């Protein structure tokens, strides 16, 4: 049962929240893009980011963005001479771009990590691998999300 008082409090809260968003949102797309680029450049630095070697596995059509299986494998011998130091995963449309940063070494045997992520909206998912020789490789997948995660208040 919702009392009149509760209803009014809720209505006021919702309106206030919407008001707040109206003030925050006009450049949300540009801000997200800038945040993603900042996050990537924080990982990569000045080194060139090349496409290849990395295989990012995400289902192309996602029913529920709250749990999305994500797996990343990198083509690397994983020996002391050449191995994958880190694997980073980013999502383009999330309120903040980071998903996971995994740090492995030659003892991993195989450069593969799988996890489950939240994906907010239709867009790209990006995986970046940092190799022991200092090079960076990436792969990206465009996904379509029908039920999005984290956006109950319409952040987008």
């Amino acid at each position, binding site marked *: 049962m919702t009392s009149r008082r509760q209803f009014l409090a809720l209505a006021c809260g919702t309106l206030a929240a919407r008001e707040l968003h109206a003030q925050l949102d006009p450049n949300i797309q540009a801000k997200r893009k800038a945040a993603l680029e900042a996050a990537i450049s924080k990982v990569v630095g000045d080194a060139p980011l090349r496409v290849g070697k990395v295989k990012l596995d995400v289902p192309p059509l996602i029913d529920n963005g709250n749990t999305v299986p994500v797996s990343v494998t990198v083509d690397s011998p994983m020996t002391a001479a050449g191995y994958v130091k880190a694997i980073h995963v980013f999502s383009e449309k999330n309120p903040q*771009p980071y*998903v996971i940063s995994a740090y492995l070494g030659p003892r*991993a045997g195989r450069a593969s990590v*799988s996890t489950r992520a939240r994906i907010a909206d239709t867009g790209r998912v990006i995986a970046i691998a940092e190799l022991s020789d200092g090079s960076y490789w990436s792969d990206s997948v465009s996904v379509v999300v029908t039920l999005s995660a984290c956006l109950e208040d319409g952040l987008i």
Partner: protein
Amino acid sequence: MARVAVTVPASAKRGEIIEIKTLAAHVMETGFRRTQTGELVPRDIITDFVCTYNGVEVFRAKLHQAMAANPLIAFTTVATESGALQFKWTGDNGYLATHKAEIKVV
């Protein structure tokens, strides 16, 4: 209270690549959601995960809000010697969970 589930093979051949799957029970509250009255729900997530093999770190991960609830992390390592694999999750509000798994290498 901190519940975790880890699968590690009980025994492995020396040099074999083993797959380890870990799961920690945690809501992973993002800090972007609001309550019915419009207040933000504060962030409460697991931020770090470390796996050590006989005291040597073999895998480490930094987690963010975009990880699903009850974060699953699956990775591989080479079975070098018999011993213990230690898992440790740490997070917001002093969250700490540990787990130990024995492995026999033949």
